[in-house]
């Protein structure tokens, strides 16, 4: 009979417990506080701050807890910090947006916190049961958040589409996971890796790999599992879109790395091939489709699909260097993406949705700071030095070349060149086109702080990337990579 969970296991889950308690507090505070109170977002940020503080004692920790259900390591810590930061930025850009849309804020902040909880569990889980339940917690929160603006038909459509396709893809993922469990007799990913040794040619295991790749491909919005992304990104409330494209994607990549690098190193020949094909198709189709978009949120959706393709290169490389590059790129991508969406949130006014490309025209005359920030985010997304996007791409392509995937890196560079066209088009609209709307956009102080943080981060990580590099490297080293290293050699 397996032993139960000890009290020390719960001390290692302190950040998750703080976040859970805090989310319940937000839910109760919403009922108790008088209507129109502005305390709630601050309370949410305080909860996120407390969670971040609870992470600090576990820096440098490296162990498995609760009979191998969770790993407390630098990798998990890295992702948890990223999720908390992204959630805080999302909350800051949500305040005025919710006021304009007239949505009730209480449940909104609760759901943001719950999806963050799900992401943290995904990043820490090294057991199929744990990562799955984390994925579900995150996904269910996002299904509701996507449809949070109920009077808006596009929001309803986004929620229904995301829910239906999400449930379908989850079925595929679960089928693959059940095959993995059935073939190894364990749900623990690390035990599984040893159980699978010598079974490379088992067709049932290959089927499991294909199914899990397809299921995860949906979550990271890789072509050909990307069809939901543009509609959901366009229809969801803009701050939710930002969090979805950053948090959900990062968490899914964390889970993907855990499953494939720690659980299925013996099958690396198969899944590297699959991911290589996915990366090429995802980059190319994402970028080509983005070229023709006139809606900013849709364009950024296709651009985020393309970025999933770049990120997959790190998985294909499969080396410590590749994972380091991936982690760096995920952070860089998060800041520039959140920043770009914050500008779109700023353009939303009572009389204007503000997510069309033409709504940006003449922004330089109307709001020079916003125009400059957007210019920076676009250059960074396109990968122009000295922004962070350049450093991120530099390391990713470098890792691919080092692992012998020169062709993949060349396709990546060509794709970046294509992507510049639609990023620069945004800049042209802001700086060259004459304004058409005639009204002045204003930034609330919270939104200004969000944009400023994103601007500083995008520049700082581009000019002085050493700190981020060291953090990412330590995190990549804490993954159990011995299996994959042996398989690749």
């Amino acid at each position: 009979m397996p032993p139960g969970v000890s009290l020390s296991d719960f001390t290692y889950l302190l950040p998750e417990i703080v976040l859970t308690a805090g989310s319940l507090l937000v839910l109760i505070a919403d009922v108790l506080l008088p209507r129109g109170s502005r305390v709630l977002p601050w309370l949410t940020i305080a909860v996120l701050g407390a969670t971040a503080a609870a992470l600090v004692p576990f820096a440098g920790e490296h162990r498995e807890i609760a009979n191998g259900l969770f790993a407390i390591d630098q990798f998990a810590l890295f992702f948890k910090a990223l999720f908390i930061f992204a959630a805080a930025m999302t909350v800051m850009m949500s305040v005025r947006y919710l006021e304009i849309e007239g949505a009730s804020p209480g449940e909104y902040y609760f759901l943001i916190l719950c999806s963050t909880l799900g992401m943290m569990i995904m990043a820490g889980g090294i057991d199929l049961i744990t990562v799955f339940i984390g994925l579900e917690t995150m996904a269910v929160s996002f299904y509701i958040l996507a449809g949070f603006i109920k009077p808006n038909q596009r929001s309803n459509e986004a929620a229904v589409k995301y829910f239906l396709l999400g449930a379908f893809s989850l079925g595929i993922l679960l089928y693959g996971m059940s095959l993995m469990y059935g073939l190894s007799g364990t749900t623990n990913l690390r035990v599984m890796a040893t159980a699978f040794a010598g079974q490379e040619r088992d067709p049932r295991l290959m089927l499991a790999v294909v199914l899990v790749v397809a299921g995860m491909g949906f979550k990271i919005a890789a072509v050909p599992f990307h069809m939901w992304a543009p509609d959901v990104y366009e229809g969801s409330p803009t701050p939710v879109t930002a969090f979805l494209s950053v948090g959900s994607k990062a968490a899914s990549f964390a889970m993907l790395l855990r499953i494939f690098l720690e659980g299925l190193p013996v099958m690396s020949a198969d899944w590297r091939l699959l991911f290589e094909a996915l990366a090429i198709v995802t980059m190319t189709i994402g970028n080509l489709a983005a070229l023709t978009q006139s809606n900013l949120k849709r364009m950024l959706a296709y651009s985020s699909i393309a970025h999933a393709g770049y990120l997959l290169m790190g998985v294909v490389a499969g080396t410590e260097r590749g994972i380091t590059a991936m982690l760096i790129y995920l952070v860089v991508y998060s800041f520039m993406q959140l920043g770009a969406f914050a500008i779109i949130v700023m353009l939303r006014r009572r009389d204007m949705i503000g997510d069309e490309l033409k709504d940006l025209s003449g922004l330089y005359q109307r709001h020079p700071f916003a125009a400059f920030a957007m210019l920076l985010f676009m250059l960074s997304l396109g990968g122009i030095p000295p922004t962070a996007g350049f450093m991120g791409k530099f390391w990713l392509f470098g890792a691919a070349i080092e692992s012998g995937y020169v062709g993949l890196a060349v396709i990546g560079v060509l794709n970046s060149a294509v992507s510049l066209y639609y990023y620069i088009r945004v800049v042209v609209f802001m700086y060259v086109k004459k304004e058409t709307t005639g009204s002045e956009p204003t930034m609330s102080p919270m939104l200004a702080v969000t944009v400023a943080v994103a601007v500083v981060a995008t520049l700082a990580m581009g000019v002085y990337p050493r700190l981020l590099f060291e953090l990412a490297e330590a995190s990549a080293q804490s993954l159990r990579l011995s299996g994959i290293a042996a398989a690749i050699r």
Partner: protein
Amino acid sequence: MGQAIAFYGLSFFILFFAVLVVSTKDTVHSVLFLVLDFLFVAALYVLLGAQFLAAIQVLVYAGGIVVLYLFVVMLVNLKRPPEAYEDPHRRTNLGFALAASVLLEVGAIATYGYASPAPALARASEVFPVSGNTEEVGWLLYTSYLIPFEIASMLLLVAMIGAIVLAKREL
């Protein structure tokens, strides 16, 4: 050998009814075929020695979820083919017969159940000594898998709040 025959037999019926679920035109019939399908899946669980799962399958899926489906089917008022309306009293007698037999059975259980005392509860573990029964699942849930179990409670809370958010009228 016997188990293999039972497995393939049950699998055949599961697939057969699954095809009927999607191929029937009448939505109510489709839902009823789904009930049959769920029952055969439950039988498959019994074959594997997972009695608890079988009971849950019958209670939650065949019972709860299908009732929900029927509600939805009736609420959205899908067009039924005209032959469904040809004679509303055609099956009345059949319905009465079924209801009478269920009543008889309930009555019989009530009468004879008290006449012969139920076996002591302690003997339940002797009846099902195999793993996969309720005790085993409960034990695992509250020991090794306590933390995922707790997270599942958060997941259910999110689903509940979500249902309220989406269903309530604007204040």
